[in-house]
């Protein structure tokens, strides 16, 4: 696995992520990994201190990580939010919209396809925390 694909200016965080259980036990870690069944809200008391949350996608069909990402961003998390695992190019745009800003796909992505996929939809219908203006906002100023 190469370096994560990152959309952050400060680059990818290097400390390895620990499991949620060990994170909650030993409180000095700054990087944590969330499995699909784990509750992102368990991290809310520690957001200030976290530099990396790695959200696992063991199978691309399991969409729980999208909710986890939004919950963290909506609660003010500004550190790196990384999607790791079965992360495919056709899911990237939605992941970006949910707040992911780095990606560690198991299989490398074709950078050209990544670029077209991310630029495909000019305006979104929904408001999310990613800051892009939803279409209804553009319609009504």
């Amino acid at each position: 696995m190469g370096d994560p694909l990152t959309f952050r200016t400060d680059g990818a965080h290097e400390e390895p992520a620990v499991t949620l259980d060990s994170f909650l036990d030993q409180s000095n870690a700054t990087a944590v990994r969330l499995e699909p069944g784990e509750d992102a809200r368990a991290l809310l008391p520690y957001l200030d201190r976290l530099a990396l949350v790695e959200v696992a996608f063991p199978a691309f069909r399991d969409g729980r990580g999208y909710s986890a990402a939004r919950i963290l961003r909506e609660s003010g998390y500004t550190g790196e939010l990384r999607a790791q695992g079965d992360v495919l190019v056709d899911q990237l745009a939605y992941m970006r919209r949910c707040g992911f800003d780095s990606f560690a796909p198991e299989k490398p992505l074709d950078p050209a396809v990544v670029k077209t996929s991310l630029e495909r939809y000019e305006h979104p219908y929904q408001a999310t925390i990613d800051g892009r203006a939803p279409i209804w906002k553009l319609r009504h100023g």
Partner: protein
Amino acid sequence: MYQYDTYDQSAVDARVEEFRDQVARRLSGALSEDQFKPLRLMNGLYLQLHAYMLRVAVPYGTLSGQQMHMLAHIARKYDRGYGHFTTRQNIQYNWIKLDEAPDILAELATVEMHAIQTSGNCIRNISSDQYAGAAADEVADPRPWAELLRQWSSFHPEFSYLPRKFKICVIASAEDRAAMRLHDIGIELVKRDGVLGGRIFAGGGMGRTPMIAPEIKDFVAADDLLSYLEAALRVYNRHGRRDNIYKARIKILIHEIGAKEYKRQVEEEFAHVKTLGIDPPLAEFDRIAAFFAPPAWEQGLSDDLDLSDPDFRLWVDQNVIAHQTPGYAIANISLKPIGGIPGDASADQIDLMADLATRYSFDELRVTHAQNIVLPHVKKADLYTIWQALDEAGLATANLDLISDIIACPGLDYCSLANARSIPLAQKIGQRFADPERQRDLGELKLKISGCINACGHHHAGHIGILGVDRKGTENYQLLFGGSGAEDVSLAKIIGPGFSEDGVVDAIEKATDVYKALRTDGERFVDTYRRVGMDPFKEAIYG
């Protein structure tokens, strides 16, 4: 009707290009079938027994003459000259080639149509009352709400990989013509203190574990609706089961944790989501609603109708429904001719219906979940001309809601999941009860056939339901009685051991004899069944 602005158009155009690119990557081998499958499904493309099937969205069942013509064009150019209208108010084409699918989507996009999210584990096409904007009993037109939901649910970044598919329905009448409570979320518009809002039901559905959706919220105002639904979906996305595909629908989650607990979690999530500012302003709702303003009705029209032609009279009695405006009527076009394939229409028939809509119905048509077509706003004075044109095209069957107005899924003739054929059985039942007098004497009798337990043919909601099963390699049919998808919603029950294809037709005939013998004045089949119970029917059938 709603019309796209440049934002809507560019989103749909972008989707066409995206899918073209995905198909190219699939054909080049860059995408595996496993990776491609969810992508094609989100564009309505299934791999069936013989070919690809494309399901085109008809948002909330409403379309214009021009759009209907496009459906005919696609049937001719890319399929075998016909299309199949479905219980989801959509249309399916059964003989599609993968490499042509992007071109079809491109053609659809020219008339503001698409196949977005007609399949896959995402929020599906929003369904609604086929008489919206025309029904005498509605508190408001539900379609602006449905369109708001269409936009919100299209390409939803958080809810495109849900545990399972998700179906939402919006109605606005006490009479439920859209099986609202058999949806994952059902919304009934109601007025409270003069303000319109939604009463929310969640966790209904058919399939192998049918459930009627319980109410989870008595009133959600228009400007809270999207936040509320976002909260409802988020709870489901996070906690719906993913370990077993058969237990992944929201109905199972709600059944397992209880409606009360689900509601509590949604309320808690809503309190958070509402702070995020994701609800569009009411001005956006008003903008959408303006597209659904009533057409310019002609004033002072007569309600008189010349019914001297007996065949016309029969059709009017059965297929024409009261309209909210004097001088107008709602005309139902049955796609259930005796011996035909329920829901199928040829390209020529589709063109004809489109022409009639343009000429006589303010350019509007509707698709119903019972697989029929509606001309929602016709002048009573034009009914006879319309009927003559329909009759000539084989589209004037006067059987709305009668025993031969059968809902049937494609079944083993097309569907890769099927256990038994649905279509030939529907044809046999139609033939057995072909006599119009006999059908009319039996009155409203909703008969619904599914070719397997997935229940696309809504058999759980049939006054008489039929479920095709596989019994040691032969097709076998279980008979169910007492279901309803209407405001008297109920789930049908299996009456006993299954039958062969001919056996089930005989059994239905015996059941109708029992009904005739036991009915009291004005009782429908289902009313008699509910009153007397299953025993007299079982006795006649198995005794």
